[in-house]
């Protein structure tokens, strides 16, 4: 926020002292900024105030003298006098607490919340100290399961409405509500219904008592035994800020941190509960090498010797071009930098591809002026052309949902209905290829889209932001490159965000872990991508390094991948066991999330810190150390081996990172990290941390960034003299020409259907499989077709059909009817049970399949 937006204040008197407040803000906020904490339960800075708990009553002056008013609900007004510490207020607080405790059980010793409970804490601080209640309390059956992840102990509930408001308003998943009345009020799902939300864990996080608990954490730890490390979620590329909490050497839970610019304290359930996998027996913990046909645990020294001899013999026998690195998007920036340096300098191979999805390519990402999330949400119009945001970058859906309520205009381009469709002013049911072609050669679709954008943005696209991403995982990435190129050409002043969702994929791009690029967004000669590398590996001898990926699960044409893995020498560097590990000659265990420090880059280019909570499990080592040790094995200088030092080298060597220092990221001054390159305007200051309001996210040990950042008057100047203010502008990358072939939109005349592949949040991955509770939610594969198509193939809703790919692959899968789909298309939803990726025809503009009833 800039100075210009800071509105003129109103003046109120708080306990006899005059303070300045922002027009329209509730008293509770103004008081908090002035350093006076008013107790509260129902008020949450990220949700609509409802004033139901009455804990925040204060005396407020009015035409008839002072009266008790809820300070969370009442807005400040010029000349208002507020008293927060009178006898009357104290009596009201006593009363409210005594009533709340009437029906609250004495569960504290066995309650997860005990020790971090707002009800406990505020009773101690503001309560009467003694209860006069001698009657029998309420009893409910306990706990009840409102979803696979969340349990509810109803007698602990104080009816603050936080969970219900979150479900209804923030997540738009209104599957819980208050039922009953008076002392029979309970939070309830529909009888036999479920609180099936991707965001259910947030209700546990904000519940001010122990009524809602998370199954994976229940009875795992006591709050006073927990320590925390500030970190960033890497389950997708949004990079939600969170605290990793741990007890002794075990990660016990993740808690969302309120970052103004990223996640507003929310996390999705996949991110929040992914720690479950860290302690599973599917972890790789020992280095292993293959002796004859058996894998044997060996020392790091022996494993390294084997890796070193492989590299030497492949280089000598087939040239460095026979060595390739796949994956790495799950690694830290420091690990990626070290591995890219190893590959491209020490070994001398160009073959490195971290983006197995084949999303929007780096050449387009670098050439397009990137928006920050804040800019995108404040845009005049946001055009979303990507796969379903809620499935790919879940918390981004929450931010969009909120922004739309505040006036953001969204135009959606999607062939299928998504979670964004109800938010959008209009959905254009067009494929990415069709839009690219339309923009390239004109026509009614292009005109229509043009008019929609022009309705609120400028001629050249000023004020418009495009969120572009792969919307059909059967498409080649060239479709998306063409779409982005055509869009940038038509709206040269527009800004972009890209929805490639793999963890640190943008860090991987920036650090040259993608074909055609060197670290620091420096172009080099084009080289093979993952698909081409695999195709080569099936024919010629190759040494493949798999960096935390399983190409069997991720690339189309499983048969080809299998023969490639069979045919090559494979080094698996991963934290989790996968199908590909069965083909390994060497397995090197890499430290998992929370086990090593470093940094990560999100989809805006925002670099944030990853905190180390516990020591690496077993013999596993941080990614950057493994790269350094391989380099040393090859007789090369290994360079720095601590994350701070590696980042220092990066900022010294690469203009992209100039001015970026680990100490800055670790300071409270840049709680939300920094967007690279550090051009002045791109630096987002999210105001200064506020230390009050421990009630917003109970359980956070250092509640620094609680609540929306509200720069006010002199605070707004905190944005001065950021690091990098004087750093050179990094050279602008030219947008390559991409032209789309009309074949990409041709309709098959012979009754074949175009395949449209989409993913869901709980897609089967090695890490999800390793999480005992979360894995129960793994999505099942299915296809959806228009009712008429379903009829035409002679199948019924829910029956199994056979899909036949162009190259003869057959897949059996359950078919569902979906009214929102057009004819001629089959939407395949990837998941467990059927490998729909196998149907994808690589090297063509679009994939077609035949459907046969079973």
């Amino acid at each position, binding site marked *: 926020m800039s100075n210009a937006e800071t509105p003129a204040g109103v003046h109120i008197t708080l306990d006899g002292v005059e303070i300045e407040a922002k027009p329209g803000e509730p008293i509770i906020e103004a008081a908090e900024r002035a350093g006076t904490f008013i107790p509260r339960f129902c008020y949450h800075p990220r949700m609509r105030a409802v004033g139901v708990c009455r804990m925040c009553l204060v005396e407020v002056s009015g035409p008839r003298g002072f009266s008790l008013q809820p300070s969370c609900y009442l807005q400040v007004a010029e000349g208002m006098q507020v008293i927060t510490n009178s006898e009357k207020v104290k009596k009201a607080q006593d009363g409210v607490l005594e009533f709340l405790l009437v029906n609250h059980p004495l569960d504290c010793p066995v309650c997860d919340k005990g020790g971090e409970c707002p009800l406990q804490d505020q009773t101690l601080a503001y309560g009467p100290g003694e209860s006069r209640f001698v009657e029998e309390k309420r009893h409910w059956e306990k706990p009840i399961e409102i979803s696979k992840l969340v349990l509810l102990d109803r007698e602990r509930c104080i009816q603050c409405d936080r969970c219900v408001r979150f479900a209804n308003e923030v997540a738009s998943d*209104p599957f819980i509500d208050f*039922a009953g009345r008076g002392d029979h009020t309970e939070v309830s799902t529909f009888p036999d*219904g479920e609180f099936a939300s991707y965001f259910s864990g947030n209700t546990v996080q904000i519940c001010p008592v122990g009524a809602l608990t998370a199954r994976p954490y229940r009875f795992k730890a006591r709050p006073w035994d927990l320590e925390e490390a500030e970190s960033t979620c890497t389950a997708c590329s949004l990079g939600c800020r969170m605290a990793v909490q741990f007890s002794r050497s075990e990660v016990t839970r993740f808690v969302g941190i309120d970052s103004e610019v990223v996640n507003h304290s929310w996390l999705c359930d996949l991110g929040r509960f992914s720690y479950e996998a860290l302690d599973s027996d599917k972890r790789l913990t020992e280095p292993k090498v293959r002796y004859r046909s058996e894998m044997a645990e060996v020392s790091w020294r022996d494993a390294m010797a084997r890796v070193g001899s492989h590299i030497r013999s492949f280089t000598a026998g087939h040239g460095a071009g026979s060595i390739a690195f796949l994956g790495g998007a799950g690694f830290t920036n420091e690990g990626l930098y070290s591995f890219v340096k190893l590959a491209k300098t020490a070994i001398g191979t160009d073959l490195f591809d971290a983006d197995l999805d084949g999303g929007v390519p780096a050449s387009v990402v670098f050439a397009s002026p990137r928006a920050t999330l804040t800019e995108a949400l404040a845009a005049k119009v946001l055009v979303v052309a990507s796969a379903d945001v809620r499935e790919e970058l879940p918390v981004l859906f929450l931010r969009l949902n909120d922004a739309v309520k505040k006036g953001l205009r969204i135009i959606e381009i999607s062939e299928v209905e998504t979670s964004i469709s109800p938010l959008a002013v209009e959905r254009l049911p067009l494929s990415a290829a069709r839009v690219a072609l339309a923009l390239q050669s004109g026509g009614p679709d292009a005109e229509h889209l043009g008019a929609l954008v022009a309705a609120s943005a400028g001629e050249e696209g000023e004020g418009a932001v495009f969120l572009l991403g792969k919307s059909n995982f059967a498409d080649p990435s060239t479709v998306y490159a063409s779409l982005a190129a055509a869009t940038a050409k038509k709206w040269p002043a527009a800004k972009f965000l890209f929805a490639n969702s793999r963890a640190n994929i943008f860090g991987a791009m920036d650090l040259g872990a993608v074909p055609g690029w060197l670290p620091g967004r420096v172009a080099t000669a084009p080289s093979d991508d993952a698909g081409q590398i695999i195709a080569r590996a099936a024919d010629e001898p190759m040494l493949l390094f798999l960096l935390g990926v399983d190409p069997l699960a991720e690339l189309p044409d499983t048969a080809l991948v299998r023969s490639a893995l069979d045919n090559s020498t494979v080094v698996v560097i991963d934290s989790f066991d996968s199908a590909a590990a069965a083909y390994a000659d060497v397995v090197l265990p890499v430290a998992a999330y929370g086990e090593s420090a470093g940094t990560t880059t999100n989809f805006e280019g925002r670099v944030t810190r990853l905190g180390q909570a516990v020591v690496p499990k077993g013999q596993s080592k941080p990614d950057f150390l493994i790269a350094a040790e391989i380099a040393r094995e090859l007789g090369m200088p290994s360079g720095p081996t601590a994350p701070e030092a590696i980042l220092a080298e990066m900022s010294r060597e690469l203009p992209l990172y100039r001015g970026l220092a680990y100490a800055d990221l670790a300071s409270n001054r840049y709680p939300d990290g920094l967007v690279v390159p550090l051009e002045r305007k791109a630096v987002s200051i999210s105001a200064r941390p506020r230390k009050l309001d421990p009630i917003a996210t109970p359980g956070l040990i250092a509640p620094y960034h609680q609540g929306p950042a509200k720069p006010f008057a002199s605070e707004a100047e905190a944005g001065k003299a950021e690091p990098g203010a004087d750093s050179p502008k990094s050279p602008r990358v030219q947008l390559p020409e991409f032209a789309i072939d009309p074949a990409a939109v041709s309709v098959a005349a012979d009754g074949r259907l175009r395949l449209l592949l989409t993913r869901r949040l709980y897609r089967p991955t090695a890490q999800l499989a390793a999480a005992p509770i979360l894995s129960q939610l793994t999505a099942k594969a299915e296809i959806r077709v228009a009712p008429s198509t379903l009829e035409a193939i002679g199948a019924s809703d829910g029956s199994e059909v056979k899909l036949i790919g162009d190259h003869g692959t057959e897949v059996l899968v359950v078919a569902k009817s979906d009214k929102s789909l057009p004819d001629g298309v089959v939407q395949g939803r990837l998941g467990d049970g059927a490998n729909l990726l196998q149907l994808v025809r690589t090297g063509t503009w679009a994939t077609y399949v035949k459907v046969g009833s079973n």
Partner: protein
Amino acid sequence: MGAFSPEMRERAESLVALYPERRSALIPLCHLAQEEAGYLTQPFMEEIAELTGTTPAEVYGTASFYDMLHTEPVGKYLVGVCTNIACLLQGGGELLEHAEQALGVAAGGTTDDEMFTLEEVECVAHCDKAPAVQVNYRFFGPLTGESFDNLIAKLRAGEYDGVVPPHGTLVRVRRENGIEVPLEEVFAERREMDRAKAERKAAAEAAKAKEGN
């Protein structure tokens, strides 16, 4: 397969059309469902959610709040005995006890033959005939134990069939021509209100601006 019969579904849809916000029709639809099934079954709540653009959980949450909406089965006759002050003074307490004996169920219970559900109710504004009893929201009183038994017997025998409809039916007279709303008039009125509001706001802002100078 919907829970509403085609005729009721049509009425439901016309009710939904009456409101600028679909969800406002939620409670009227609950009454329709009770008219059809006697109480709110899960399939009905699901269909109401679909009709009003809400979720079943929200319908259940709302329905469970109101005493006149039932999410558990109720008998054909919902018998409410008032035990509020006026009735209590006139023997409402004893009458309730008698009713429990006579029907063989405690307050809140339903007889095995699913004919009667007994309720203890707060003042139903029939104090002049205390102690008062309501059967499906039709009033009787003052009642003694004997006249209560009489009433039950008559209900059982069907003698009140024309007067007391089965539980769920609130109004027996249906408008011949459906519900007609002069939408044009309503919209015009709304527009006028919006305009006046905007005018007031502009005036207030102008005044403020002047003050500021």
